[in-house]
């Protein structure tokens, strides 16, 4: 068995459908015991990649490695997958259904039942056992689905939009469970458009756009890389004198009066200018009350990367005519 630092590694994965390419040469490395955010706009290829990891479809080229082993049938029981398009058999009873799904993941019936009862108790849903799935609300069904995903204690968990349909309280509950699973040793791949949750719980991210991995790594580092030397400053004094202290090295992005004689301004340092230079310039003219760097949100980074790519595409498209890109009914 070859050893690898990564729980999951995708090497040069290509997936083509008749009308379009869903993934072109995607490389991803997911280290162990982390929460890995798999981000990207709709139709970027996230679901295609997740389906390949789950062996629902096969790649046209490239391969997937789990702990250094090439992906094979035995890995099915090591993976827990909560798809975005998820559901349950409507006419089946909740308990029977959960047992069925657990057994399909290779659990023994008795062990599955024991574990299920433990989780049902934990989530306070023991009285649902004999209810039919169609009697459950969407949120209730989601809870059951979450349990059936993690029940067999997989080493690798893949959650595709796990928070949709949950109220804030249950969202918090699920988030905490996901963090707990990581702390207990599991590796979690989280695919979501909910950037707030990404900020909150992800350690690593990969951003897939137009079938390619355009950005990946540790989230903190990415955020740092994307910070544009922007700052928010609150000061007391004359706006004119604040503005007067401006010279070539700064750009005033916005300004707002927040109290009498007190303003909040957002500035960006241009070129090689240091923050010190800026401070030296304004301190004689006004009273600085606070100053903090503006860290880009994942939301901003997402939009920035995706929109840049789109603009680039547009310039390309003006020279070559591309009509096929909107066709093809494949889900991501």
């Amino acid at each position, binding site marked *: 068995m070859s050893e690898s630092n990564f729980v999951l590694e995708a090497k040069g994965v290509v997936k083509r459908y008749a009308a379009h390419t869903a993934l072109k040469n995607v490389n991803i490395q997911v280290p162990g015991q982390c929460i890995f955010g798999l981000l990207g706009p709709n139709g970027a290829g996230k679901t295609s990649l997740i389906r390949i990891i789950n062996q*629902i479809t096969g790649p046209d080229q490239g391969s997937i490695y789990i702990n250094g082993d090439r992906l094979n049938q035995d890995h099915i029981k090591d993976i827990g997958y909560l798809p975005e398009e998820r559901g349950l058999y409507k006419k089946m009873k909740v308990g029977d259904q959960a047992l069925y799904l657990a057994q399909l993941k290779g659990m023994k019936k008795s062990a599955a039942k024991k574990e299920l009862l433990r989780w049902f108790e934990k989530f306070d849903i023991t009285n649902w056992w004999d209810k039919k799935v169609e009697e459950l609300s969407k949120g209730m069904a989601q809870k059951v689905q979450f349990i059936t995903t993690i029940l067999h204690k997989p080493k690798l968990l893949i959650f595709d939009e796990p928070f949709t349909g949950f109220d804030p309280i249950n969202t918090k509950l699920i988030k905490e469970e996901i963090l707990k699973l990581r702390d207990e040793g599991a590796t979690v791949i989280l695919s979501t458009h909910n950037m707030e949750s990404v900020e909150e719980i992800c350690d690593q991210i990969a951003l897939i756009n137009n079938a390619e991995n355009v950005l990946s790594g540790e989230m903190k580092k990415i955020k740092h890389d994307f910070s544009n030397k922007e700052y928010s400053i609150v000061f007391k004094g004359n706006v004119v004198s604040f503005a007067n202290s401006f010279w070539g090295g700064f750009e005033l992005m916005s300004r707002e009066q927040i109290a009498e004689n007190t303003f909040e301004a957002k500035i960006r340092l241009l070129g090689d200018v240091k923050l010190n230079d800026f401070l030296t310039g304004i301190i004689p003219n006004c009273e600085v009350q606070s100053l903090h760097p503006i860290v880009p949100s994942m939301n901003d980074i997402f939009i920035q990367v995706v929109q840049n790519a789109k603009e680039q595409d547009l310039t390309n498209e003006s020279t070559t005519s591309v009509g096929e890109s909107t066709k093809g*009914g494949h*889900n991501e």
Partner: protein
Amino acid sequence: MKAPLQLANQRKEDTMNKVALIIKREYSSRVKKKSFIIMTILGPLLIAAFYAAAIYIGIQQSDQVEVLLLDETTLARTSEFQDTDNFRFKSYTGTVDELMHELKENNDTTFNRIGVYLPGNITGVNAAKIYYNEPIGSEKQAELRETINDFAEKMKVLKAGIDKTAYAEIQTRLNISAIDVNTNTESIEEIKGLIGIAFSFVIYLFIFMYGVQVMRGVIEEKTSRIIEVMVSSVKPFQLMMGKIVGIAMVGLTQFLIWVGLSAVLMIIIQGAILPDLFDPSTVATLNEGNLMQSQDLMQSQELINAGENTNATKINSLVQVLMNTPWLKLIILFVFYFLGGYLLYAALFAAVGSAVDNESDTQQFMLPITIPLVFAFIISTNSIANPGSEAMIWFSHIPFTSPVVMLVRVAAGNVEWWEILTSMVLLVLTFLLTTKIASKIYRTGILMYGKKASYKELFKWLRYK
């Protein structure tokens, strides 16, 4: 690390366990349904009711028809025209127009009334006429024609001055039996044909019913969105086969319960309606050799000539056909052809289910499945007259029609064992092929949401990895 062989075995076992789980769920979720239980119990009751009705119609005293006899020969009433179960003769005096008027105007609804016109020189014109307001059944019509013929014949005999007893000697009614050389039994082809068609109909019905259940199951999995969870645990092919096999077992369960219950009910009905059939002597006669049977038949024929007990004879020969029908062979072949035909079509039904989002979109893809099935059934129903025709032989070998057609031929006899074998092998091979093609469409289709696929796309899916 496990040895490769051990690992392979372990995987195989895992796969089998999973498929077994799927089969179990598909089976038990359907068998527990109310609709299944109702159908399973109601089915044999319907068959029994049908059977009882057939027997009842067979023995029932049919309504007597009143015949107004306009007899210009003036000899009819006294000789041939004696009242029977079917006819009550009444002399009528008047013209043909008056007779017609009478029938038209004085139409009694409680019994049927017809008129017979025997012209005075009936032996010269060789013609007579039957007038009716409400038509009478073909059997009665035949009886009436026979009576009129006999009468005319006797008139001629009288005219020619032939001795009456000599004439009676000459007059012949041969008992001509049609014996099947394969079984050396006499049988009524129509009844054999009907038995075959009954089997072919049940197969046709089952393929459709359970094929559609497979399709619905796939659509249900798609619309409830459980499918993606399922295929992350099992291969799409395993899921599809698990479903197909599970539903096949539901079908077999239903069929076997039907056979069992029908047999019990038929025995009860026969016992109630025809107690003498279970008189040991009757059963013995029926079960003994063919020689005995033909003797028995001859005796029955004499009874017919004596004009007695015709209904009992009819039922006797019906029972004979039923007893001579190779039920066990038919049931075994039924199970095979049902499974073969069902498996062949079920995979296609599954593929159709995978290609759509709801049942109303299935129309366009159902057509190519429906046409061969319906066609096969039409061929079977048209075969009563000629079960050994060339078309029947062809279609009993073509796998898309053979499950429905072959049993008609088997019920009629005259099928060589190698013909059955060829047809079976072809069926199995085709089933493997269609399943392979269908599973390719299926595994792509189940993950496509929100868009109705076209035939063009289905062909594309065949090539996906």
